[in-house]
């Protein structure tokens, strides 16, 4: 409570009112919390009996009530009001920022710094953090791919994991049946995923918004179920082994398995299981960089502009002679292809895949990356992918509360930044003599 404000009688009356209001709100919050948590937290099922644990919901309800009380008071202090104002102002910001042409130089240094750090990191990190980084990179790739579909073309795809699965199984089954290696499977699986995207997309891309979402969700589930049920071909729930990557025929294993030469033997160095992961990381980093470049160029190409125009207004696009189905299809296939590439890396990094890795929650997580990234912002997607993959690992410190805390943070992040972490940016154009 502001000490200066209490002195005058008028403000004292006002503060009395505020105080009373806050007490009422706190009481209501207490009652509500008790109703919500009383039965679920306070009465624990034990067989057909009940264990009474009333000591658990009471503190929760008390904390909520006190919190509500403090917040109710705080919004009436000048600092509280200013904070509220700032919070709301940020939420009202327009979605898109147009950046000038002169931004390039500064960005180049940042870019260089990030690349340098990303390249040195794997040599410093422990194996655990290296695998987390690989995992994060795979999600960056997935995020970039889905960003084309959801962020740029505005098509809500809730079954993106299907293409991820096609890529992963493309490598594993390709190795099993066709004797493909990692590098030959990479382009093939990518093309296969794109083909899947095309075949699935063509009949359904005429649908609007959320109907498309549920149909893609359906496709995602169908693919997962088929992978799970088709025991003879995919190994069903038992999964399949995926080959490890090779560098020009060099294997990253202790002893040669697939008839190649182990990497450490060739270079006469001691065997280190990290080599394999560093190699995967570097290859993945290369692909991610390539993908960022491709996406950046695509956005400024006719097809990329058409994607974004389609997101903004499909009807206007049609009135401009753009075949919306084909443009959507190109976005869908492009996204599917990137998903397929990510799948190949996932499979080779895991060494073993089964359908549980491709469930609906995975799709939801990738959509969350894109939305949190700011729908269309490449940097945003990268940051969001890193946050959403590294966060659960950091939260392992919370042990049992890990996923719970992850859920809470997801809600809070959306409330804090409903439009995502990054505002999408647009390039300004320069034409001789005309630009101000």
């Amino acid at each position, binding site marked *: 409570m502001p000490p200066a404000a209490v002195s005058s009688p008028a403000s004292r009356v006002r503060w009395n009112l505020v105080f009373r209001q806050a007490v009422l709100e706190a009481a209501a919050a207490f009652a*509500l919390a008790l*109703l*919500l948590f009383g*039965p*679920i*937290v306070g*009465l*624990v*099922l034990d067989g*057909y*009996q*009940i264990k009474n644990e009333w000591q*658990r919901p009471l503190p929760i309800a008390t904390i909520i009530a006190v919190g509500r009380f403090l917040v109710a008071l705080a919004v009436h202090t000048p600092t509280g009001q200013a904070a509220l104002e700032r919070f709301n102002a940020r*939420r009202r910001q327009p*979605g898109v920022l147009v950046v000038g042409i002169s931004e390039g130089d500064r960005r180049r240094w940042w870019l260089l710094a990030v690349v340098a750090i990303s390249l040195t990191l794997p040599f410093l990190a422990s194996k655990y953090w290296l695998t987390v980084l690989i995992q994060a990179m795979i999600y960056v790739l997935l995020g970039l791919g889905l960003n084309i579909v*959801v962020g740029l073309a505005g098509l*809500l795809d809730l079954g993106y994991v299907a293409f991820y699965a096609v890529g992963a199984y493309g490598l594993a089954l390709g190795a099993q049946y066709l004797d493909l290696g990692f590098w030959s499977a990479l382009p093939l699986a990518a093309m296969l995923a794109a083909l899947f995207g095309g075949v699935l997309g063509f*009949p*359904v891309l*005429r*649908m*609007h918004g*959320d*109907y498309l*979402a*549920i*149909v893609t*969700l*359906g*496709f995602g*589930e*169908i693919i997962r*179920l*088929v992978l799970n*049920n088709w025991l003879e071909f995919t190994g069903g729930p038992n999964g399949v082994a995926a080959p490890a990557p090779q560098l020009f025929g060099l294997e990253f294993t202790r002893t040669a398995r697939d008839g190649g030469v182990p990497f450490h033997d060739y270079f006469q160095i001691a065997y280190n299981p990290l080599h394999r992961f560093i190699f995967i990381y570097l290859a993945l980093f290369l692909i991610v960089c390539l993908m960022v470049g491709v996406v950046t160029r695509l956005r400024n190409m006719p097809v990329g502009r058409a994607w974004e125009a389609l997101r903004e207004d499909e*009807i206007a696009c049609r009135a401009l002679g753009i075949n919306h189905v084909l443009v959507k299809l190109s976005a869908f296939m492009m996204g599917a292809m990137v998903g397929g590439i990510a799948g190949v890396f996932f499979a080779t990094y895991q060494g073993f895949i089964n359908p549980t890795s491709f469930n*609906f929650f995975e799709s*939801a997580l990738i*959509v*969350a990356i894109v*939305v*949190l990234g700011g*729908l269309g912002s490449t940097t945003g997607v990268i940051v969001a992918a890193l946050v959403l993959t590294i966060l659960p690992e950091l939260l392992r410190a919370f042990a*049992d*509360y890990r*996923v*719970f805390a*992850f*859920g*809470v*943070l*997801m*809600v809070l992040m*959306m*409330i804090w930044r*409903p*439009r*995502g972490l990054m505002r999408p940016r647009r390039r300004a154009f320069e034409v001789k003599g005309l630009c101000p």
Partner: protein
Amino acid sequence: MDWHILVQQLVNGLTLGSIYGLIAIGYTMVYGIIGMINFAHGDVYMLSAYVTAICLATLFSFGVNSLPFALLATLVMTMVITATYGWTIERIAYRPLRGSTRLAPLISAIGVSLVLQNGVQLSQGAKTQGVPSLIPTTLRFGEGDNFVQITLVQVMIILVSLSSMAALTWLIQRTSLGRQCRATQQDRRMAAILGINTDRIISTVFVIGAAMAAIAGVLVTLNYGSFDFYIGFVTGIKAFTAAVLGGIGSLPGAMLGGLILGLSEALFSGMVNTDYKDVFAFSLLVLVLIFRPTGLLGKPEVEKV
């Protein structure tokens, strides 16, 4: 297929479908009014199963002997508590996001779903819970080996869901609250200008949806006897599919979609193969949407140019 098997499968399909339909109402109403897929709804249903068991066990531990009274009290309590959850979730996780991108509440809903699942796991444990079989009565039709056997609870499921549907339809079509709901659904801004408290109406819709899920939760718990903190996921996706199949935004569509989905699952797994029944269900959805892009009872979308 023999007639008694067919009849039995139809009953199976109808009960399953009624449950889907009840849960689908929550999806369809929320979608209709704010255009959001409420992925946390399945977990609200899961919650109601827990509340049911907790209420029953508490009542029995206080020595309540009358089964009808216990069931009724449980139903009311479950509906109240679950509806409160529906209201709170909307208030905390969705309302602050109103007016931002369409996808923000979707992500928030996924977060809420994680919170509910893991919150229940943390407080109630991960193991499968259950209630004893309270109404063991079964009805048997037919002679010898060719008989149809239905539990009384199955009959209750069909009756209760149909009557809840009827009551809800009456509420939406005939009452002032229903008119306000429909007005808000058609044009939220205009409704607000006309003096309808749209925030309150949206809250009401969440409350109704949760209450319907609570009815489903009570019935399912009585019928199958067991549940765990993860049941919301599978059932939720199915119910959402049902809502879309029937035409999302349409109340009768939700029930119809639920029944069709339930029946087709039952008949497909009965006549063809259980392994692929979900594949069949989703394929059915895709096919229906290709030929009727707004679902079975959804209003055909007239493009506003």
